[in-house]
């Protein structure tokens, strides 16, 4: 922990109001980006940031300085977003089995697989990025959450398993299925000749 961070934590532990505001102004942008990514809804994202800072303030005595303050806050924000994800009303979801590739008896894929061009140009537009985020929202919640934590927030498999109360094996399986399902959902948007 940096000396300035140690001082800030000490001030927070003593209930110093300006220290809390400093914490807020330093880290709220990054945390808002995290909760926006996880919740894809501005109001929920802001509420989760508020929950995260209030939780952090209450838990500041348990901050052990092993990780940086930013890393600790990131984890709290992810938890706050997960809590909101669990409680908010969900739209009907597809079953994961409907989105996984299918195979013939001899083990070959049922449908021919077509290649996609480099998507970088298409993703320049906010509209295209929003379409991808909507496809992520279509994934079943148990799979979407793992995909968001592992691929988007960059948590490792062990941390993801701990946060979600899963085994490491279950996290790996869900991540692989979530990616395959998302690939299926993106196929019609990105495949080379649009005929997939």
């Amino acid at each position, binding site marked *: 922990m940096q000396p300035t961070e140690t001082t800030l934590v000490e001030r927070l532990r003593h209930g110093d109001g300006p220290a809390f505001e400093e914490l807020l102004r330093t880290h709220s942008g990054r945390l808002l980006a995290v909760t926006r990514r996880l919740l894809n809804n501005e109001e929920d994202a802001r509420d989760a*940031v508020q929950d995260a800072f209030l939780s952090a*303030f209450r838990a500041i005595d348990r901050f052990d300085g092993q990780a940086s303050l930013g890393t600790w806050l990131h984890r709290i924000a992810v938890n706050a977003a997960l809590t909101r994800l669990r409680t908010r009303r969900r739209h009907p979801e597809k079953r994961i089995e409907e989105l996984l590739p299918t195979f013939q008896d001899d083990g070959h894929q049922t449908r021919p*697989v077509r290649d996609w061009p480099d998507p970088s140009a298409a993703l320049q537009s906010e509209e295209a990025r929003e379409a991808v985020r909507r496809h992520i929202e279509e994934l079943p919640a148990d799979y979407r959450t793992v995909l968001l934590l592992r*691929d*988007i927030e960059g948590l490792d498999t062990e941390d993801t398993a701990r946060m979600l109360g899963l085994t490491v094996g279950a996290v790996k399986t869900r991540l692989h299925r979530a*990616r395959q399902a998302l690939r299926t959902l993106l196929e019609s948007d990105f495949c080379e000749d649009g005929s997939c």
Partner: protein
Amino acid sequence: MLTCREFVEFLMAYLSDELPAVQRAVFEEHLCACPDCCCYLHTYEVTVRIEKIACGCGDPPPADVPEDLIRAILAARGQPPPQA
């Protein structure tokens, strides 16, 4: 001899470099011989890139956090809002 079903099953382990050398060699042998699986691997990797771009991974955090959010959090903590 690996089937396409087995190829897809072990794809993530292959990309994460978790396959033992012998299995990796069998996997790569199938990859060279099967255009469908070659495309599947490529589009699987592209999917991961697409999701990261769409979700703004690596984008800088918003420079201007809404002031009303800062004020709401301070108020929720029972702290007076900053002077404008």
